[in-house]
Each structure stands twice: as structure tokens, then as C-alpha cells.
């Protein structure tokens, strides 16, 4: 099955918006991380779609790079969540327990 | 003449030496500062002496590359106006150091270093003819003074120093805009990128553009002079500064404003200045009356003197914008005389505060029997400040009013009305501080002025008297040299004198 690049871009945009919305409305840090992954994947999808439009491999190259980034980000992100926990933060709620402000 | 650089570098070197000396002994910086000032006076005397006779209005010149990529040079030129103000700077530095700063106990090395650094900056302002160099000195002289006020000032020093710095720096940025605007326009016209005063003076400017650029300069100098309503930093700053700072501020720093108005507003933008003159004259008259009026209402003696400065320097604004050689000369004499008289008054106010631990006139009174010498000098300088004929202030005010009358009699009448108010506040100050009966049960024994104070203040008095009775040397020097051709005879005024302007 083939889809027009424009449609793929539309899908990517929706995914992206969904991810952004997730970051904005979820309070759980884990879910926020996942939302970011969604956004990254939306961008990756957009690259693939664009590459399809121009019949070039650049889009796929970019996709691979983004995949690597997403993986790295997930790893580092989870490590930081552990650090947060080790530092004494009781919950994964992003809105409570913030010390840095003002 | 390479010695011009020395006028800036010598005080800087002195500053460094004083700072180092301060680490050795608490009294050493004072001696270093005195020595520096003596050397500086000697250097200035040499510069004055070395001026070639009949060499045109520009008396000395020196130049060296600085930032060639942007056409910025270390160019300094000196004309009579600069020379007069340099001498004023040196002359007022002596009372600062001799009378006020000897007893500074807290970090005397740093204090004297900052004082000398300020003097270096002021010297630079008076000789720089590269606009960027001028702006550099203009900003540079603020920093040490800011520190002086912040650290050694009186109770509300923080706010005062802040205000001082923000006003002068903020308006300085406007001037920077104007400088750069002028440079860019000049570059656009000729393809030459330069900050040179003489070259930039030849730029052709459309009237609105010239007005806009002139206003940038005007605001910066108007803040410094100060011109009502941009004066609000001055009373606070003068009140809160340590005595030496007040003397330096009133005596010298404010004069950079007047100098700038002459050198960079009227002479760089003669046409725009003429069109702006009505506004400036009105502001000058407003300053004279408003400053005097508020001076009358003050209970703080230093604040009173500060507002009187606002009033006196309104005459400078009048003179500069009266558009004639007469007014220009009057403005210069007024600047010198104001420096001497108000500087001395600040010395006296500072001495009073040292003795009484208050500046509040409501808590003074009847001091004459307790401090006859101090009171007598106070009276003398108050009288000078109210413009008694025979003293320097009168010469300045008269020439300014005469020049103003030619342009606009109503403004001159308002200015003359300021003379009445000046008598009012000066005599009120004397009456409240020295005359009448002491509050409570009289004053305890207070140390009167000794020989050192009387000598220095007596010298100031003698200078004022000389200026009042034989001002011709200053008058001859005071006509600023024109930027255009240095060969033009000095006598022709920058703007044609004459009857009322339409």
C-alpha cells in the first residue's frame, strides 16, 4: 500500500501534536518521556515521508539517526528518573516537589 | 603634543601608586595623591606654556591609531575651552584631596586611587576629539565615582549612586546612538569610516536627521549638566557622596556636560542647535527658577547646595544656546565660577557634617560664635554663589543674561528673577546654619577650620575674586575652537550673534 507523502506528513503532524499535548498535560514523568518519544517518532516519520517525496535516501538516514537519538534519550531519561528517586523525590509527578524555581 | 596623553596617564599611574601605597601605610596614599596632583599641575603648566604662539585656536594635538578597522584613533586636541576646564579640574582636585580625603580611614589607598581615576577620566573627556575615545572616557569616569559614592557615601548612598549611574549611563547610550548615527551617515556619504571629530563635522545632514542626532547628544549632556527635568539624580548624588565626591561632582563632573554641549551639540550641529535653541533656552530658564525654588525648600544643607547647582547651571545652558560668543564666554566663566564656589560650599557642608553629624538645617543655627572661621567662609561662598558683582559668578551670569537678552528678553528676565531666588536661598541657608541662636543649650566646643582649610578656601576665594574682577584671560581662552578649519580666527562666533531670532 502506498500513501501520498502529504498524507504521511499529515499523520506525522497529528502524531507530533499528540506527543506535544502529552508533554503538556501528563504529570507523570514517565509518560512525558513517552510523549517525547512520540514526538521524535513523528519527526522521523515526517523525514521518511519527505524522503519518499523526493525519492532520496536522506530521509531514511535521518530516520536512523533519530531512532538512535530516541534510544539514547530513553536510556538517559530513565537513568535520570532513577537519579531523581535516589535523590529523594518521592513520586514521578512533575508538578510537585520542585526545588528550583523563581 | 604627546604630553596630552600624560594628562590622562599621569593620574592613572598616580591611582595605581596610591592603591599600592595604601597597602603600605594608611597615610601614604594621601601623599601620593598630592604628589600626583602637583605633577599634574606641572604637566598642565608645561602644556600651557608649550602652546605655540599664534598657532590658531587649537592649541595642541596628538593622535595615535587605536582600532584602525573601525577608523577609531586615540586623537586628542586641546583648545582654550579645554585648557580652562582642565585647569579647573586640577584646581578643584587640590581641595578634594587636601581638605576632604586626608581623614578617610576606610581603605584610603582605594579611595585615592578612585579619586585620581575619576580625574583621569575627566581629563580625557576634555581633550578627546575622537568621538569614540570621548565616549570611552565619558563612561569611564563614572565607574570610580560610582564606587566612591557607594562605599564612602552617606546613609542613603546606594540609591543615590544607582540613580547617578543609571541616569548618566542611560543617557550615554543615547549619545552612543547619535555618535554612531553620525559616523554611519558620514560613511554613507564619503565611504570613509571614521570617528574623527573634525572629519565628522563636515558631514552634511538633513535638518530632521541633524536634529535627531543632536538630541541624542543633548540628552546625555543635559543629564550631566543637569537640565531640569533630567536633574533628579543630582540632589541625591551630591547629598550622599562623600565630601570629596561632592566637590568633584559639582566642581568638575557637571562641567563635562557644559563642555559637551558646546563642543558636540552646538559646534557639531550648529543649524540644529539654532533651531533647538528656543526649547533649550526655555529649559535653561526653567532650570534656573526651579532649582532655586527647590533649593529654598530643602532642610538638608547639601541638598540645598545641590539644587542651587541646578539653578546655576541653567545659566550655562542659556549661555551655550544663546548663540553668541558672549553667551559662550559667559557659560564658561559660569562653569568655572560655579565649580569654585559650589565646590567650596560642599567642602564647608562636609565639614559641618563631620562636626555636627547632621546635615539637617533644622538642627543647626547659631554656629557663628562656635565656628567663626567656618561660618565666615560659608558666608563668603554663599555670597559668591548668589552672584555678587565682583566675584566670578556674576561675570558669568551677566554675560549669559546679556547674550540671552539679545535673543529673547523674556527668558533673560526669568533668568534675572533667578538671581533674586538665589539670594533668597543662599541667605536662608546662611541664616539657618550660622546665625540665630543655637538649638538647645548651645554648641559644645567644635574644632574650627585650621590654617590648611583657610589657605585652600582662601585661594579659591582669591580665584573667584580674580575671575570676578579680571576675567579677561579666561574670556580670551573660553571661545571654543571650531571643528571646521583650525585656521579661522578665533573671534568669529560659531553662530552669528545679533538681534532676536524669528
Amino acid at each position, binding site marked *: 500500500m502506498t500513501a501520498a507523502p502529504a498524507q504521511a506528513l499529515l499523520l506525522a503532524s497529528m502524531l507530533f501534536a499528540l506527543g506535544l499535548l502529552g508533554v503538556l498535560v501528563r504529570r507523570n514523568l514517565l509518560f512525558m518521556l513517552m510523549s517525547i518519544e512520540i514526538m521524535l517518532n513523528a519527526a522521523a516519520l515526517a523525514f521518511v515521508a519527505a524522503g519518499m517525496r523526493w525519492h532520496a535516501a536522506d530521509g531514511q538516514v535521518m530516520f536512523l539517526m533519530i531512532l538512535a537519538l530516541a534510544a539514547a534519550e530513553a536510556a538517559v531519561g530513565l537513568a535520570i528518573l532513577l*537519579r531523581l528517586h535516589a535523590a529523594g523525590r518521592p513520586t514521578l509527578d512533575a508538578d510537585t516537589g520542585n526545588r528550583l524555581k523563581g | 603634543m604627546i604630553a596630552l596623553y600624560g594628562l590622562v596617564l599621569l593620574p592613572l599611574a598616580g591611582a595605581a601608586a596610591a592603591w599600592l601605597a595604601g597597602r603600605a601605610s594608611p597615610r601614604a596614599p594621601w601623599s601620593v595623591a598630592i604628589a600626583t596632583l602637583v605633577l599634574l599641575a606641572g604637566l598642565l603648566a608645561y602644556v600651557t606654556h608649550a602652546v605655540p604662539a599664534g598657532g590658531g585656536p587649537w592649541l595642541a594635538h596628538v593622535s595615535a591609531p587605536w582600532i584602525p578597522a573601525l577608523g577609531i584613533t586615540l586623537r586628542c586636541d586641546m583648545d582654550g575651552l579645554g585648557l580652562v576646564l582642565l585647569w579647573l579640574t586640577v584646581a578643584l582636585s587640590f581641595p578634594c584631596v587636601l581638605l576632604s580625603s586626608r581623614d578617610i580611614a576606610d581603605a584610603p589607598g582605594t579611595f585615592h586611587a578612585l579619586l585620581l581615576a575619576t580625574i583621569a577620566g575627566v581629563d580625557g573627556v576634555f581633550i578627546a576629539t575622537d568621538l569614540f575615545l570621548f565616549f570611552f572616557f565619558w563612561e569611564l569616569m563614572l565607574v570610580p565615582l560610582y564606587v566612591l559614592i557607594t562605599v564612602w557615601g552617606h546613609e542613603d548612598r546606594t540609591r543615590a549612586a544607582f540613580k547617578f549611574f543609571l541616569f548618566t549611563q*542611560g543617557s550615554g547610550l543615547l549619545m552612543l546612538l547619535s555618535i554612531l548615527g553620525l559616523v554611519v551617515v558620514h560613511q554613507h556619504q564619503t565611504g570613509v569610516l571614521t570617528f574623527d571629530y573634525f572629519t565628522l563635522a563636515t558631514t552634511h545632514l538633513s535638518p530632521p536627521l541633524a536634529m535627531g542626532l543632536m538630541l541624542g547628544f543633548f540628552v546625555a549632556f543635559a543629564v550631566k549638566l543637569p537640565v531640569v527635568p533630567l536633574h533628579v539624580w543630582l540632589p541625591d548624588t551630591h547629598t550622599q557622596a562623600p565630601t570629596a565626591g561632592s566637590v568633584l561632582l559639582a566642581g568638575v563632573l557637571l562641567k563635562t556636560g557644559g563642555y559637551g554641549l558646546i563642543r558636540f551639540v552646538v559646534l557639531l550641529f550648529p543649524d540644529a542647535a539654532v533651531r533647538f535653541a528656543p526649547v533649550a533656552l526655555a529649559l535653561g530658564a526653567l532650570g534656573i527658577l526651579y532649582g532655586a525654588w527647590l533649593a529654598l525648600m530643602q532642610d538638608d544643607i547639601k541638598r540645598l547646595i545641590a539644587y542651587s547647582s541646578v539653578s546655576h547651571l541653567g545659566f550655562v545652558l542659556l549661555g551655550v544656546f544663546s548663540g553668541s560668543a558672549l553667551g559662550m564666554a559667559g557659560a564658561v566663566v559660569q562653569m568655572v565660577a560655579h565649580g569654585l564656589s559650589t565646590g567650596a560650599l560642599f567642602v564647608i557642608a562636609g565639614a559641618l557634617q563631620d562636626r555636627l553629624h547632621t546635615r539637617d538645617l533644622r538642627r543647626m543655627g547659631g554656629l557663628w560664635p562656635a565656628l567663626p572661621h567656618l561660618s565666615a567662609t560659608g558666608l563668603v561662598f554663599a555670597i559668591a554663589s548668589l552672584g555678587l558683582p565682583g566675584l566670578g559668578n556674576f561675570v558669568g551670569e551677566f554675560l549669559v543674561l546679556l547674550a540671552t537678552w539679545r535673543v529673547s528678553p523674556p527668558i533673560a528676565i526669568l533668568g534675572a528673577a533667578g538671581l533674586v531666588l538665589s539670594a533668597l536661598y543662599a541667605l536662608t541657608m546662611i541664616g539657618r546654619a550660622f546665625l540665630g541662636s543655637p538649638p538647645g543649650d548651645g554648641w559644645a566646643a567644635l574644632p574650627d577650620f585650621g590654617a590648611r582649610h583657610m589657605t585652600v578656601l582662601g585661594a579659591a576665594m582669591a580665584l573667584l575674586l580674580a575671575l570676578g574682577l579680571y576675567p579677561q584671560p579666561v574670556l580670551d581662552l573660553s571661545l571654543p575652537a571650531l571643528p571646521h578649519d583650525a585656521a579661522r580666527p578665533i573671534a568669529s562666533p560659531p553662530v552669528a550673534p545679533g538681534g532676536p531670532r524669528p
Partner: protein
Amino acid sequence: MIAALVATLPDMPMPVLVLAAGILVLLLAIACRGSRPSGAAGGTDDRTDGGTVAGAIISAATIALAFIGLWSPASPPSGGMARLFAADAWFAYGTGLILLSSGGILAMSWRRMAGERADEAHLLLLLGTLGAVVAAGSANAVAFFVGLETLSLSLLGLIAYRPRVPDAAEAAMKYLVLSGTSSAILLFGLALAYAETGDLRFTAPPAANPAEPALAVAATILVLTGLFFKLSAAPFHLWLADVLDGAPTPVSAFVAVVSKIALFVALARYFAMTDLTGTSLPAQDLAVVAVLSMVGGNLLAFGQTNLKRLLAGSSIAHVGYLLVALLSAGPFGAGSAAFYLAAYAAATLGAFAALGAGPDRPDLAAWRGMFHRRPALALALSVMLLSLAGIPPAVGFFAKAYIVAAGVSAHRMLLLAALIVSSIIGLCYYLNVARIMMAPAPDTAPAMAARSGGTTVLLAALALATLLIGLFPGPLVQRTTALFLPAVPATETAARARGPFENMRW
């Protein structure tokens, strides 16, 4: 295939190569030491220190070599590599600044990173530097993206470096979430741009395709958003204060200096071929962001009592100033941006170095009376703040004047008005710090950081440089002007054709 890869290596810019090699060496060193059986926990200190010193020496040598590598007579990248890297003078200048700053940060964290073992920190520092250099030199969205993410990820590690410090973890968390979000936005924008043009070259925002104008616009905006976030330009600045506050001081310096230099160099390259003088979309966007950054950053700093947060506000404001320079295309614009970048880097780095050498807490109150307690330190910090405030004789004075000159010559009156107003606000808080240091010292001295030779040398060098370049900016001006010589005539003639002050715009 490996052979083919190796064959392309000489085409890479030398600093990138050197940094990568250094990282490998350091990795090896750490791996060797880490594989050794470690003794009792108490007895490892000396050895650890020894190892850390070795790591630091390797890092320093790497950075030094990379810096020297800038002068390598390598031919400019050709072939495929040319599509990835633009090893031009601007890159060399930016890289030079990045490497010098990294060297400075290394000096600050010479042996320890806020009380922790620092060998992995050195590794992350080198990685971050590599990322910054790559991002600064990238001519391609791929290279830019890789460099940027290398930088971001290593920064995450550095920010969270101190274990069991809640602030550090929180700062890292915030940076993680926000940087992830902004990376996604940036990537999406790049994807849209790619979809629009079919070209991944990272040189210019796509020209609007008449068929799909919204796409190009969205691409430009999204890319700019991503860049602005990393530059911490308002209104995308909110993370900066928290991150600088929570991170160890050298890392704060890294975030405020190195990553901003890299991003600004990239931003400038992104717009190198675009005419920013008009009211085009990116110009408008940049102008709004510049005004918001200048005013907002200074206001933010105005209300701070925490020096790190204050410097964060200051840093935001300076990004605004840099954007003014960027927007002021003309004879001075590019030169002034380059000059300002150097002035900003020196002063900010110096300020953070002074913070690192000062009291443990970055509270302003802890600095009260510092002129009496540690005059040299207070003087150094004052010089840095003077430079940031733009007061002579520090270099920041000339730098700001240079930017104003650029703005005037490009008739950016509104921007200049904002610059002046915000500079005056800025003066307040810089002076306030100086004033507090000049106030009489309180009776109880705050706990001070241990004296460190590296920091002292760094501070002295930076203070000297700040003053010397401030007094004699000529050579550096020459250099920064020369950076853009080829580009100047075009814009200059463009500016001249319009004539000065005839049509005032943003």
C-alpha cells in the same frame, strides 16, 4: 568499507578529528583503570585522583591539540564531506572560542567536579565539546542534528553528575524533558523543510513554495523554535535558570557558554544566505525574540538574589544582543556578532569561574563584603560583570558599542531602543552585585570553595584578557571583520542602496 571511511577522514575538520581521537583515548584510559580490581573503598582515593589527573591531562591535551588543529593547512572539505561540514573562517572562529571555553571549564574542574570524581566528567566534557564543534561546523541537517544531540546528551550527564543532589537531578530532568521536546520540534521543522525543498543542507530556511506557503513557514518557525530553545532566547528561556542553578558550576558555565556559542554559530550559518534586513518572516521572528530576550532576560535577572540565576537572566539578555547583531546585516553586523560572542564568552566564563571559586552557595548574600574578604576574587567578578554590563574599560563596552554601531548602520531603531532600555535595567543588577561586594563584610564568613590553581589561573587570564581586549580591541576587530569579508560587500551595497534612515524598520 572501513577503509573507505578512513579515506574520508582527512576531509573532516581537524578539530573534530582530534576531539574524537581524544575521546577514544580517554575512553580507553578509563576502561583500563576501571577494569583494574579496585581495592577497599577508602584506599582508592589517591589512585582515583591519579587517574583523574591523567584523564584531565588527556582532555587538556586533546583540547589543546584541537585548538592547534584549527591552523592545520587541511584543504577545505570536499566531496561528500563538504555537504556535511563547512570548515570556513566562521567555523574556525567559533570552534576556537568553543575550545578555549572548554579549556577554561576544564581548568575550573581540573581535578574534581563539585567534590566528585571527575574522569567521566572529563569524558562528557570532551563529548560535549565535540558535539558543539560539530554543530558549529555543520552544513547539513544530519551533521547539525548529530552534533546538537551529542551536546545535549552529554550535557544531561554533566548536569546530573552529582549523585544524591536533588537539585542536580531535578535540573537534569527539566533539561531532559524540555530539550527532548525542543529537539523534536526542531527535527519536525527540519523534516518539513526537507519535505519542502528536498535538500538537507543546513544553510537557509526554505523559500516559500507558492503552492504550499504554510509548509515553509511552519518549517522555518519550528526550526527557529528549536534553535531558540537551545539558545535560551525568550520566550523559550524558562529552563535556563533552573538548569544553571542545579548544575555544578563548571557545567553551568558549559551550558551558558559553549553550547550557546555552538548554537549561535549554527544559527548565523543557517541565516548566512538570508537577507535579514527586511521584514521577512525569519527577520520578524528573530526581532521579536531578540526584544523579548533582552528585556525579559534583564528583568528576570533584576529580581534574582541567586547569582547563578542572575547570570542565567544575563545570558538570556545577551542572546538578545547577539540576535540584534545578527539582524543588523551590514558592514558591522557580522563582525560585531563575532566580537560580541568572544566578549560574552570571556565574561560569562569568568563570572562562573568566580562563582566556582567563591562561597559554596551562589546566594548574593554570601558575597557581601567580598571586597574586604577576598579582594582579588571580588575584583575579578566585578570586571566580568562590568564587561557584561558594557562599561569601560572592560571588553563588553566595546562589544556593545560595536553591536549598537551595527544596529545603527542597519537602522534597527526599535531593536536599539529595546537594547538601551534593557541595558539600563541590566546595569541595575550588575551594579547591585558589585555594591554588595563592596558593602562591609558580615561577621560570619560563608563557607568558601577550596582554592584551586586552575580556577585562579583561569580567572586571572580572563580578567586580563577582558581588560586588555577592552583597551585594545583593534586586533580582534580586525580578525572578526576579516571573517566575513567576502560576505560584506553584498550586504553593504544592499544597505547603501537604500540610504541611511530613509526607511526605518525593526
